[in-house]
């Protein structure tokens, strides 16, 4: 099997699963319990938090565990809205965000908030100048993703941060679900950022676990009220086995990150170079530093994305039609539509997404199958 759908999810790493199992069997107390079992669990929880914080170069008290990327996005956006609604009701985001952001914004619009959706250029990137124009006195949040999940565009977070430097009251949120471990940590954890969303299962941790970074001093209303866990900001008994497993997965992810990123870049470059020779292929991902090293989105003109995905699947190669979340809904990719790509082409888009476990050998097999499929579809397509 060749798995090229790592932006959808990743396989839990064996050593990560081992931690999960050990913790669920040995350190299964409730971290809030007073006795030893609870105290041990509490200590492991805090040690995990510290490890995550150290890996990101932030303070331990700036890390809050969640159930994943969707919760993180919902929390930062709605939590800001609730916290700051008396100061303003205007939020800014981009038109290419993940549905966890876009649909949350839509829900807030129904409640009387106003949302500005920044357009993107043909590379899928927002323009800092557009952001500057969109900022109003009642703006309370700017939420921009680090790496687009469909085409891999890296947003100009440094330029956005520079603009927001002059608006210290606005919360700046970065959805880094696709960005962590892809060689852009300084861009994500920039000086101005207030909140960052992370999701464990994108880097070989189990499902149902994630975390946010919340800058010290920034206020965020809780969405989960209850027993007061996570400094009373995210109640619910802590998912300790998954938290410890994720802390380990993050360490493994960031260990020799540069080399892993380089490896993914080489594979991307290899596939890119090959398929770009074909006249009916359109590539939406580019080979430069404004694109992530692991995502390659392309179309074969006239062949529906779904057809391509299944054709590859027959050869035991797994990719997807743009984002996994929307692929079953037969919707045109939101990112490509925002980039003003004609619908006929957008419905053909497929996404190859890599991680550090993919190899050039796999890429060679991929292009062999690609060649076969291309010539086969050319017959029905010409």
């Amino acid at each position, binding site marked *: 099997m060749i798995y090229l759908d790592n932006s959808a999810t990743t396989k839990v790493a064996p050593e990560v699963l081992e931690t999960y199992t050990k*913790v669920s069997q040995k350190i299964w107390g409730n971290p809030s319990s007073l006795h030893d079992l609870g105290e041990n669990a509490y200590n492991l929880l805090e040690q995990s938090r510290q490890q995550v914080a150290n890996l990101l170069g932030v303070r331990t008290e700036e890390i809050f565990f969640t159930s994943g990327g969707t919760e993180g996005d919902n929390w930062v956006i709605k939590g800001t809205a609730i916290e700051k609604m008396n100061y303003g009701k205007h939020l800014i985001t981009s038109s290419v965000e993940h549905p966890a952001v876009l649909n949350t914004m839509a829900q807030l619009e129904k409640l009387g908030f106003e949302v500005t959706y920044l357009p993107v250029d043909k590379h899928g990137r927002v323009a800092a100048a557009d952001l500057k124009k969109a900022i109003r006195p009642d703006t309370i949040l700017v939420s921009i993703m680090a790496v687009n999940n469909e085409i891999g565009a890296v947003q100009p977070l440094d330029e956005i941060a520079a603009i927001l430097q002059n608006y210290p009251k606005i919360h700046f949120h970065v959805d880094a679900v696709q960005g962590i471990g892809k060689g852009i940590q300084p861009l994500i954890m920039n000086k101005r950022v207030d909140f960052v969303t992370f999701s464990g299962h994108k880097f070989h941790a189990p499902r149902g676990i994630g975390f946010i970074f919340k800058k010290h001093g920034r206020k965020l209303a809780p969405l989960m009220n209850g027993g007061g866990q996570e400094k009373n900001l995210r109640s619910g008994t802590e998912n300790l086995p998954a938290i410890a497993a994720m802390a380990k997965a993050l360490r493994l992810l960031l260990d020799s990150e540069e080399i892993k990123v380089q490896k993914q870049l080489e594979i991307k470059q290899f596939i890119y170079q090959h398929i770009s020779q074909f006249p009916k292929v359109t590539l939406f991902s580019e080979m430069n530093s404004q694109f992530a090293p692991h995502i390659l989105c392309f179309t074969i003109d006239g062949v529906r994305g779904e057809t391509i995905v299944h054709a590859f699947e027959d050869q035991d190669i797994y990719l997807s039609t743009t984002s996994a979340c929307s692929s079953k809904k037969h919707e045109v990719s939101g990112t490509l539509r925002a980039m003003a790509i004609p619908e006929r082409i957008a419905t053909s888009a497929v996404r190859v997404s890599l991680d550090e476990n993919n190899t050039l050998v796999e890429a060679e097999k991929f292009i062999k199958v690609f060649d076969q499929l291309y010539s086969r579809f050319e017959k029905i397509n010409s």
Partner: protein
Amino acid sequence: MQYSEIMVRYGELSTKGKNRRNFIDRLAFNVRKSLHQFPNLVVKAHRDRMHLQLHGEDSTAVMTSLKKVFGIQNFSPSIRIERDIEAVKEAALTMVKEQFFEGMTFKINTRRSDHEFIYDTNEINDLLGGYILKNVPGIKVKMKHPDLCLRVEVRVNGIFLSSQTINGAGGLPVGTAGKGMMMLSGGIDSPVAAYLAMKRGVEIEMVHFFSPPYTSEQALNKAKELTAKIAPYVGHIKFIEVPFTEIQETVKHDVPSGYLMTVQRRFMLRLAVLLAAKRNGLAIFNGESLGQVASQTLESMVAINDVTALPVLRPVVSLDKNEIIKIAQEIGTFDLSIKPFEDCCTIFAPPAPKTKPRLDKAQEYEARLDIDGLIERAMAGIKISEIKSGETFLNQQEDEFAELL
């Protein structure tokens, strides 16, 4: 930027007349102890300033530790460059660029201790200033109160550049003001009081009362970990644990509830005083702040303080709770202090303690007890350990967990 030397300016000790040498020696000793994890570092303490030669040690890490040493007014990291004007130009440019912001002003301030150098002070100022103006667009020269003052020192062994003055912890070198016993409970106030005592040069030893089974092992470990949190200011701190169960049980049994707290505190103070006598302590420190709780009224202090003539010093006496919390957060003890373990002050807390206890009553009730016996047995059970900075006690499985993570 990695620096090659750090120049340290002394704090108040400049004014200490004859004792000056003692202060400087003690400060050098403390600096060496606090920086012991940097084996290549050389500390040279002179009359006016101290020079730390880094010899390749990480300057950022050294400065982080140095910020915690009391007795330092401020310090400046500097970089040593060969006596070659071109190399100096490049280093100066890098230094300015690193700190540059839009609209920044600067000046060059050159001193020559070596007058043989081919350029004189003004020439060096002109050369470097001109080079920076040419290569940093938007920077301006300003002689009075510039944003950045680049100091250049020409010495025989090289040219030293520095541009930053970083505030030290202030205060007096720990150990120059004698030794005191600190009564450490585990709450928010006593670690702050300990920190403030150290800031005025006092070497402290922690005295912690524990009452198993009424207080848990965790409460004891919490007190030890709190000690480890403030140990970086001195290197290490002695921790004395005093068993207090028998005294608390006896007092609870034999003393009317309104005076429970007063009599207990008298016992604690007696024990601390005895420890001071044995260990050359000159004073007792505690974390009392006036009016916070029943035991912290002036009347209560009179009734408790009666057991000793030693000074009982209360560094946080006039601080508001919020002011104390602010310091606790700065020194990193707050989150630990609020962990909810019962300590010897919270168990057996009477429902209605007297806020204005009378000394004669306290003495009268206490006279019913076998004071000497109780004290003797408590003293026989003390344990003394040395706690180093960064040690952890609450998480006993740190290494085991590290393997899981």
